[in-house]
């Protein structure tokens, strides 16, 4: 007995010393559930691939919670080496020059290979500064796509293999679905008023979201999303809601949107391409179709690329041990490997970040075996991106999104027209932008 115990003690002591030798790299992230497990697997495989560094992933809650936690930790001098920040936090991170260690510089300082051209252009464009330097490491990027219930389409007398291409077609099909009793609701949107229903709507229809190339040109930007097209789009959603064709599932990501689709209450769901795994797991008892986002043929005949969401990995300044940054650089090199990227992309539905990962997937025959899995990447790379479809860069966008949600709700409850609501949102949003400009300029 004593022998066994002492052996165990020695084993523990040995493992403790071996982990002491490795430099720890803390990584705060916001991936819960299945995605979180996969992320931990990525970190673990990196740790097994070498013995000098140990990446320690820590789940910090939702995206906003993770960002807030990292900022609070930075102020207290306890920041992690890597933090995962969602795309709307990009403006905030870019403005925080002293807090961020730009990835292009990190890689150069630590002599790690770094090829900006190897990344998908629409992805890195979102995270580059005016000189084209990539500031944060692309990790999980997604774009909204359309999921639809083929069985309900069939029940309503529609061709299950033909998804609506335009919003007008969606409205007609939705009406048919509701009228025929195939489902009580035609379609629902996650991020109905923000990422999907306003940001991507503007990008795909090539409408400006803000001045100065949607904020890429500097902090003096002002919102332009209150155009007459967007207003008409919102009025139309209200009309569809009154006809029971559209159902609102709550602000932000819309907590009730996906469940309504899974429960076959709504025939169509538009949401992140990264919901793919979840949709497939949850769509019990019906066949799911995948399709690109619809476009508005009253505005454009040539839909532009959609814009991305998701998150990137930011390196924070101020680690006491400089070796940590060497570990971060090594880890980023590992992350950009085609095999690692392709595995992450294929498991989660996030976009392949590098061209090599996409090509690897093609070579493996992944996209043929999994129909619909390349819709997101095709949608994001179609055509030439315009100033309006390159992405968004605004400070405090989290807060601004909240107030756009609130204005959207006033349209849905009939208190305001689309134009009034968008005008009010733009006005309040501009005030927040000015505040951000004031607190971030010298």
């Amino acid at each position, binding site marked *: 007995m004593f022998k066994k115990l002492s052996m165990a003690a020695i084993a523990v002591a040995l493992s403790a010393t071996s982990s002491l030798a490795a430099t720890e790299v803390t990584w705060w992230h916001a991936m819960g559930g299945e995605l979180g497990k996969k992320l931990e697997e990525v970190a673990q495989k990196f740790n097994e691939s070498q013995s000098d560094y140990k990446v320690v992933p820590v789940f910090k809650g939702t995206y906003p919670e993770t960002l807030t936690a990292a900022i609070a930790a930075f*102020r207290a001098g306890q920041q992690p080496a890597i933090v995962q920040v969602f795309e709307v936090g990009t403006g905030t991170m870019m403005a925080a020059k002293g807090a961020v260690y730009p990835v292009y510089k990190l890689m150069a300082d630590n002599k790690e290979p770094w090829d900006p051209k190897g990344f998908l252009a629409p992805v890195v464009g979102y995270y580059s500064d005016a000189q084209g330097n990539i500031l944060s490491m692309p990790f999980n990027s997604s774009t909204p796509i359309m999921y639809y219930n083929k069985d309900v389409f069939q029940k309503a007398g529609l061709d299950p293999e033909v998804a609506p291409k335009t919003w007008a077609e969606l409205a007609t099909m939705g009406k048919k679905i509701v009228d025929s009793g195939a489902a009580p609701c035609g379609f629902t949107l996650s991020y109905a008023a923000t990422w999907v229903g306003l940001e991507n709507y503007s990008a795909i229809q090539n409408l400006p979201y803000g001045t100065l190339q949607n904020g890429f040109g500097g902090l003096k930007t002002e919102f332009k999303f209150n155009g007459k097209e967007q207003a008409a789009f919102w009025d139309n959603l209200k009309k569809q809601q009154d006809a029971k064709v559209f159902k609102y599932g709550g602000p932000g990501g819309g907590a009730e949107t996906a*469940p309504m689709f899974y429960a076959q209450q709504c025939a169509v769901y538009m949401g992140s391409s990264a919901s793919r795994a979840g949709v497939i797991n949850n769509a019990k008892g019906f066949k799911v179709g995948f399709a690109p986002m619809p476009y508005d043929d009253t505005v454009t005949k040539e839909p532009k690329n959609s814009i991305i969401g998701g998150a990137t990995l930011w390196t924070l300044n101020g680690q006491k041990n400089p070796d940590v940054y060497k570990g971060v650089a090594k880890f980023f090199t590992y992350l950009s490997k085609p095999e690692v990227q392709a595995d992450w992309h294929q498991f989660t539905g996030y976009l392949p970040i590098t061209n090599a990962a996409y090509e690897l997937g093609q070579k493996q025959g992944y996209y043929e075996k999994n129909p619909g899995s390349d819709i997101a990447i095709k949608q994001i790379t179609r055509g030439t991106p315009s100033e309006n479809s390159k992405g968004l860069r605004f400070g*405090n966008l989290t807060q601004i999104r909240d107030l756009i*949600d*609130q204005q959207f709700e006033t349209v849905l409850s009939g208190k305001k027209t689309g134009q009034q609501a968008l005008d009010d949102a733009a006005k309040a949003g501009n005030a927040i932008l000015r505040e951000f400009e004031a607190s971030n300029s010298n």
Partner: protein
Amino acid sequence: MQTKRTVFHSRVLPYFLLAPQLIITLIFFVWPAAQAIWQSFLRQDPFGLKATFVWFANYTRLLDDPDYLNALGATFVFSVGVTVLSMGLSLLFAVCVNRVLRSGRFYTTLLVWPYAVAPAAAGLLWWFMFNPSVGIIPYLLSFLGYEWNHRLHTGDAMVLIIIAAAWKQISYNFLFFVAGLQSVPQSLTEAAAIDGAGPFKRFWTVVFPLLSPTTFFLAVINITYAMFDTFGIVDATTSGGPSQSTNILVYKVYADGFIGLNLGPSAAQSVILMLIVVVLTVVQFRWIERKVQY
């Protein structure tokens, strides 16, 4: 009232005895409060890399902000709603339990349970029951022809958070009312009964006035609770929406400071909240404790 006077012979000992409490107060209350006041005069970026002293700019901007005024209004409606609903119901329950002779203790235990539920859990509970897609209450209401949707209807949302917040407070109020009722001398109600007063009249003319110290005390406690202790409920049920209708002051501090990362204005809001607490406390100690008499 008689007070005991203790005389300390050493000058150091009383301070020494007070020290633990004073240190805790300084570290956990005074220091953060001072920080909040200091930050409310600054404009700074989230990471704290740059800060400018802006005097009262954060305050003046707040008072010009229609959203802030809206939050003040929502807080008023909310705290009055919670106070009236929770105190009304708990008084009713207390009176009922007080009349029950044998099983009073049993009912008391049952009624005290909700107090042990954490605010976030209570919020989630109500979120489920009132959920427009899967909740039982919207389903039942639909038979009455009412389409409940607190995601869209501002009135529904306010009613939801008032019910959720009041429910939690019923136990606390109930205990105080039961204690208050038990201290009303039986002889007074008996005398009133002999004089021919019915149960209803006896309650309103004899018992209720005698309860007034308890009632006033609870009113202050409930308003304070509704204003400052309901963050979890709002966060779990409505998150301040739809269109800001349930964005009460304490939730707005969180939304602006933690989600919006606007630290200066958020700090200014907490300072204003702090002033409201001070006023409420002064009211409680100076006015209620002295003026309310039998």
